[in-house]
């Protein structure tokens, strides 16, 4: 179309010192195959600005433009603390650019190249943070599809930012890359088997990529190498990766279980949501160990052969809408008032929780209790110290949940410190992408005690999910 003739002048428009739509262009900080990056300033914008300009022209591949368009569409729609803020864009046909927040941090790729050895704890933290970042996309119906160390920035404090949405998919916008089957869509070591098969709508692809990254950080190797051919790419549809513990003995069995589960060829066999992955990484006791945890030998010839037969008929699992991941495996929060002495209410809350958990076999329950604040000094008595108080509450929570008879991977307990319990509960629900908050409202509470009506109203008004109020 008439695009290239106009585009020719792009290099003239974007030069240091020139002004485009109020953006004063600064230094060129990066020139890659697909795009150039410039710093910029603009009156009224107080964050550092980065302008991304696609490399277009006669000799440039058309993909660079489609990727740019895709990134523009998706970045503009996203609101996430793990994604650079979108600040503006120019006309695609005449002066294409995306203005975004210039985020501090270095690509994870640099650390890998420098030969950094990651401790087990570091890998677990990066994995959990990545899962949280990815969940913030999935909950907005977007899938990154190009999660790789190059696209992950880490700042001094360890905070992650995901960049480059040129290959991403958003369920609410047309997918310009749909049915694009040519090799090279995505980064060979990190893309999921279903991406190899041309599927771009499965949020569990991002979970696979997180698995590859954790594998790489733990072992220094890529689970399926860096294949350059289609048959090489297809290997991940059937082969079992070399067990990480066979490479690095100190990796805990539970972590091998988690990483290998992320790398399952069928998306339905992986963790179904990034939230779930984050939870298991943060709470290893909840991980159910299977034979994955025990693998120490490389897969045998026969096992590989069996896998190859299965892969011959490789059928990607149906992809649920990204934000629906949590609907099939909902996280429910039971807010329990440990001071509560209303036995009827206690029974009814337990029964309600039991019924809800029964309805969703993949659901999880988080029991929480709030305390006003813990003493800053350590007292003499166990029950006066901060840890003692928290422990006391935990014991009560566990006692509350005992009749539910849940396996450990379906339940966890948290004592939250908060001056304003309602806000803290809402915040906790947001952070964990909860689907439901279960609270009890007693008739037997003396009026003098805590303004619970206000709390209840606040939770109902501000909750990011449904609120189930149990009454007797």
């Amino acid at each position, binding site marked *: *179309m*008439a*695009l290239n003739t106009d585009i020719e002048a792009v290099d003239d428009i974007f030069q240091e010192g020139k002004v485009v739509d109020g953006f004063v262009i600064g230094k060129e900080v990066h020139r890659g195959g697909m795009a150039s990056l410039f710093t910029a300033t603009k009156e009224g914008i107080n964050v550092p600005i980065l302008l991304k300009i696609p490399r277009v022209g006669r000799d440039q591949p*058309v*993909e660079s433009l*489609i990727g740019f*368009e895709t990134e*523009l*569409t998706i970045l*503009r729609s996203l609101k996430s603390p793990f994604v650079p803020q979108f600040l503006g864009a120019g006309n*695609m*046909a005449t002066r294409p650019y995306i203005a975004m927040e210039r985020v501090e941090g270095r690509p994870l790729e640099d650390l890998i190249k420098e030969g950094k050895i990651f401790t087990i704890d570091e890998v677990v933290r990066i994995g959990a943070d990545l899962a949280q970042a990815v969940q913030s996309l999935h909950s907005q119906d977007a899938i990154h599809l190009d999660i790789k160390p190059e696209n992950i920035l880490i700042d001094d404090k360890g905070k992650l930012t995901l960049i480059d949405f040129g290959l991403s998919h958003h369920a*609410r*916008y*047309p*997918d*310009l*890359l*749909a*049915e*694009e*089957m040519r090799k090279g869509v995505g980064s060979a070591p990190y893309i999921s088997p279903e991406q190899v098969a041309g599927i771009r709508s499965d949020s569990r692809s991002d979970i696979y990529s997180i698995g590859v990254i954790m594998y790489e950080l733990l072992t220094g190797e890529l689970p399926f190498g860096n294949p350059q051919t289609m048959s090489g790419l297809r290997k991940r549809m059937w082969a079992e990766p070399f067990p990480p513990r066979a490479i690095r003995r100190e990796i805990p069995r539970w972590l091998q279980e988690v990483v290998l589960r992320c790398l399952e060829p069928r998306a339905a066999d992986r963790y179904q949501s990034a939230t779930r992955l984050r939870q298991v990484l943060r709470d290893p006791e909840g991980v159910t160990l299977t034979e994955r945890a025990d693998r120490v030998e490389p897969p045998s010839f026969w096992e590989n052969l069996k896998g190859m037969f299965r892969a011959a008929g490789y059928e990607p699992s149906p992809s649920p809408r990204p934000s629906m991941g949590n609907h099939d495996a909902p996280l429910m929060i039971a807010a329990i008032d440990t001071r509560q002495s209303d036995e009827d209410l206690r029974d009814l809350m337990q029964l309600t929780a039991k019924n809800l958990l029964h309805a969703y076999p993949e659901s999880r329950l988080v029991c929480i209790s709030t305390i006003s604040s813990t003493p800053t000094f350590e007292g003499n008595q166990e029950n006066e110290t901060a840890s003692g108080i928290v422990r006391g509450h935990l014991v009560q929570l566990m006692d509350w949940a005992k009749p539910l008879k849940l396996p450990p991977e379906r339940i966890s307990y948290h004592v939250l410190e908060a001056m304003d319990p309602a806000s803290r509960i809402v915040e906790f629900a947001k952070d964990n992408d909860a689907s439901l908050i279960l609270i009890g409202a007693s008739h037997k509470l003396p009026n003098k005690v805590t303004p619970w009506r206000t709390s209840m109203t606040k939770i109902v008004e501000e909750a990011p999910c449904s609120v189930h109020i149990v009454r007797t």
Partner: protein
Amino acid sequence: MTERIGLFADLHSNLEAFEACITRAEELGVTRMVFLGDLVGYNADPAALIDRIAALVEAKKAIAILGNHDEAVFKDCRTQMNASANAAIEWTKTQLKESHIAFLKNLPLIVNEEKMCFVHASAYNPSDWNYITDSMSAWRCVQNSGKSYTFVGHAHEQALFYQSAVGKLIRFAPHPGDEIPVLQHRQWVGVVGSLGQPRDGNPEACFAVFEPGLEVLTFHRVPYDHFAAADKVRRAGLPEDLANRLITGK
């Protein structure tokens, strides 16, 4: 002022839906309107609807395009429609004055502007009333319109066909209210959905708003008093299934 075009198709004599959509479009700051054909048929207010649209066209606030149901009023198309549709056309004829029929007869089959093409069914042989339902039919349409943007109705479900990386036109099911970037260097076919007889299981009326300057297309759904509209259909003695369609949206 940036241009903001309200796109309405398959209005089918549904006055209640029409008024609700026009009100909403005005709230959204629409600067002009395009009625993409099938102003009449199926429902109970053909004369009132033509009067309103004719007034908008007269005031240069809108353009209107011919649809197959409009054509059926002045031309024998019985073999191309089902029994209920034909019954509704026969009834419609009894409701219209000479001036209404003259208005329909004068409607253009297709209107081309610099970047946009407006047509009821498809830019490919418009008078054959080809449905745009798949990649192939959308491709034929853009091949013939040659424009970046082609807006159609006829198929009652909202859809956006877009040119993907492989050149093929791919169907996208839009989510109401989402501003979809539709950049000019690609070809797009917007099927704006039926205002007067939605068929996707949702009784809310369909329309769309296109902002050429911003290169943004937004599909809308508007709730309206579909029980009242259905009641009018029944009282007019039109086939019962036409009334039920409004209630179920199917």
